[in-house]
C-alpha cells in the first residue's frame, strides 16, 4: 500500500498572525508543521503499523508513506519533522512562481504529484491553521476523480479489500461513509494523539529521501499558478475586532437561569 500525506508548513499556530499586505506574514514568525497534518501522519503510521509484519512502519513493513508538500525551501523543516515521526520519504514542490497560490492552484499542483505516484490512499489534515479554508482534500479528490472521506474521526482500512471506512460527525448526526481505493481522507484532531519524534527518528530522518522539485520538473506550466494566474483574490483584510468585555452575570437568586438563557441565546446549548 502506498500512502501519500499532504502537509503544509504554517506560521506557528500559537503566535498572533500578522498581515503583510493581503497575505499572511510568514517570515516574521517561527514556521511549524501544520498541527492537523500531524494527525494525518499519525493515522497513516497507525494504518501501516497495523498491517506490517514487524508491527512498525518503515521499509520492512511492505508499505510506504510519502509526504507531499508545496512551499518555500524552508518547508523542508516541516517535512523533516514528518520523516522523524516515521514517514518514509518526502517530496517538496518549491518554485518562485508558486508564491501566493490559492487553494485551487495548490490542489492542482498536489494532484499532479499524487497522480504520478500510484498511491492508494491520500491523507490530509482537515485544514491548515493559517488559511483555514478546509477545501484542499475535497478539491484533490475532484481533480483526481477519486472518492473522498472527509472529516472522519474514525477510520478503518481493509488493505486486502482495498477498502476504507470512516465515521464523521455532522450537525445532523453521525455518518458512516466508505469507499474503495484510491481515496482521499481528511482527519480532524479527534482521531488520534500524534506521537512525538523519538531521538532515533530525528537522527534517522536525515538519511531519508527528501526531494525538492520545481514546477518544470513535475511538468507544470508556471503561468497557470501563483500570483500570475490567481483563481481567487483577497479584496480586503480586516483585523479581528478587539475582545469585548463580555457579560457579567451576578447571581442574586436567578443566576442559573440567566446563565442558561445566555448560553441558549449564543446557541451553545
Amino acid at each position, binding site marked *: 500500500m502506498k500512502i501519500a500525506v499532504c502537509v503544509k508548513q504554517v506560521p506557528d499556530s500559537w503566535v498572533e498572525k500578522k498581515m503583510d499586505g493581503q497575505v499572511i506574514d510568514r517570515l516574521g514568525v517561527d514556521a511549524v508543521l501544520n498541527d492537523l497534518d500531524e494527525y494525518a501522519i499519525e493515522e497513516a503510521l497507525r494504518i501501516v503499523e497495523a498491517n506490517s509484519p514487524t508491527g512498525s512502519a518503515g521499509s520492512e513493513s511492505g508499505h510506504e508513506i510519502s509526504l507531499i508538500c508545496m512551499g518555500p525551501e524552508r518547508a523542508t523543516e516541516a517535512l523533516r519533522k514528518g520523516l522523524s515521526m516515521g514517514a518514509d520519504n518526502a517530496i517538496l514542490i518549491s518554485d518562485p512562481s508558486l508564491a501566493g497560490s490559492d487553494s485551487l492552484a495548490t490542489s492542482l499542483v498536489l494532484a499532479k504529484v499524487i497522480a504520478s505516484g500510484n498511491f492508494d490512499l491520500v491523507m490530509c489534515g482537515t485544514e491548515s491553521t493559517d488559511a483555514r479554508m478546509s477545501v484542499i482534500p475535497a478539491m484533490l479528490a475532484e481533480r483526481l476523480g477519486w472518492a473522498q472521506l472527509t472529516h472522519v474521526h474514525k477510520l478503518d482500512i481493509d488493505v486486502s479489500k482495498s477498502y476504507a471506512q470512516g465515521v464523521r460527525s455532522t450537525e445532523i448526526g453521525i455518518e458512516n461513509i466508505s469507499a474503495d481505493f484510491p481515496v482521499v481522507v481528511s482527519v480532524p484532531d479527534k482521531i488520534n494523539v500524534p506521537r512525538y519524534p*523519538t*531521538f532515533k*527518528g*530525528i*537522527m534517522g530522518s536525515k538519511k531519508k529521501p527528501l526531494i525538492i522539485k520545481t514546477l518544470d520538473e513535475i511538468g507544470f506550466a508556471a503561468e497557470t499558478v501563483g500570483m500570475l494566474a490567481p483563481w481567487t483574490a483577497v479584496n480586503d483584510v480586516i483585523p479581528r475586532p478587539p475582545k469585548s468585555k463580555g457579560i457579567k452575570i451576578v447571581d442574586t437568586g436567578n443566576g442559573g437561569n440567566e446563565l442558561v438563557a445566555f448560553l441558549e441565546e449564543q446557541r451553545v446549548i
Partner: protein
Amino acid sequence: MYFQDRYLSNEQILMRDTCRKYVDEVVAPWIREDRSREWSMDPQARLAPHILEKADEIGLRYLGVPEEFGGIPLDADTLSQTFAVISTELSRGDSGLADKLVQNWKISVLLGVLAPEHLKKKWFAAYMADPQFLMAHCLTEPRGASDRWLPYNVPEASMETKAVLEGDEWVINGRKQFISNGYDAKLYIVYANTDSTQGTMQGTSSFLVPRETPGLTVTRCNETIGGRFMNNGEIVFENVRLPADHLLAHNDALGKAGIYFQPGKIMVAAKNLGIGIAAYEDTVRFVHERVQGGRVLIKHQAVASRIADMATRLEAVSALLRHAATAVDEGSPDAAILATMVKVFASDEILKVCQNAMELHGGYGAMVEVGIEKYFRDAAVCLHSDGTTDVSNFKIVKSMFPATAGTYAGPE
C-alpha cells in the same frame, strides 16, 4: 513566553520539542501531583519507574551510546550544543532527573572511547535493556574535589583512593564522596592513584567497576537541598579486585577524561538555565493571574521591572552558554575557560532569577506545594557542583594569565 529558536538547527529544534513534550506531559505533571515525593527518605522510592521508562521510549537514554550498540549518534561537530539544548529542556522539568541522564550520556561517551570491545558489548547491552540502569563517575573524594583543578600537579595532591596491580588483578582501596548517581548506579567508572611518585595528571588511572563487585559498598545517599531526584552517594572500596582488562586508562585517566570535563561544565550550566526558565515561566503565569490592588501583578511597575530583570539574566546565560558550547565543539583554545565561565555565571544569575520568582510569589513562593521554592533549592546546588565558584574563578584567571597569576593554593 518562550525564548526564540535563533541559532538552533532543525534537528536541535525537533529534539528540544520532543524533550519539551516529555517534560510537559510526563515529568512536570508527576512532580506537581505530589511534591512530598522528593522528600521520601527511601532514595529508590523517589522517582517513579515510568519517568525513566518514558525517557527510554523516546530514546533519551541512548544518547552517547555508540551506534553499533543501538545508540543514537548525534552530530559530533555540534555535540555540546545539542547536549546543552536537551539538558536545559529536561531540567525545566526537574534538574535531578536531568542530572541522572546527563551522567549516563557522559559515561556512555567515555566508555565508547575507552572500554575494550568485549566489555562495551556486555555493558552497553545491559544498559540498553534496562530503563532504570544508571552509571556513575567516581572522581571526588571526601578530602575534596575542586582542588584537583588548581594549578598544581604534585604527588601530595593526588587521590587517596589507590589501585595496585597484584598478579593479573587490580586491587582498589579508598572512598569516593558526592558521586552523582552513586547511590543507585549499576556501573561505576572509578579513578584511583596508580603512581604515588607522580602528580594527579600523570598518576591517576580509571577502572570499570560493576556494582556487584565484592568489596564495593554504597555507604550512604547524601540527602541534599536540591536536585533530589538524583541520588548522590558515597562509595567505599575495600580490596575491590578487578580483572586487568577493567583498566580503562593507565596513569593518564584525567587526560583521557577530557572529553567528559568540558561538555560536563556546559551541561551543568545548561541544567541551571533550565531551572531558571521554569521559574520564569511559572512566575510570568502567576503575575498575569494574581490580582493585587485591583490589577494583575504585571501592571505594577516594581513587578514588571523584576520580570524584565529575570528575562535579561536568562538571555545572558543562554548567550554565553551557546558561545561556550560552540567553543567546546570547535575544540577552541578558549573552550575550557568559557565552559568554566558559563558554569560560574549561570549559577549566580539563575539563583537571582529564582530569588525573584520566590519574592514575586510572596508567601506562596515559600510553600512546598506551590513548587517555586524547589527551583531556588535546585539552583542552589549548582553553585558548587562541578567546581565551586571560587576555585573555578582561580582557574579562569590562571588560564588567562598563566605567567603572572598566583598559585592561590596548594601545598605550603
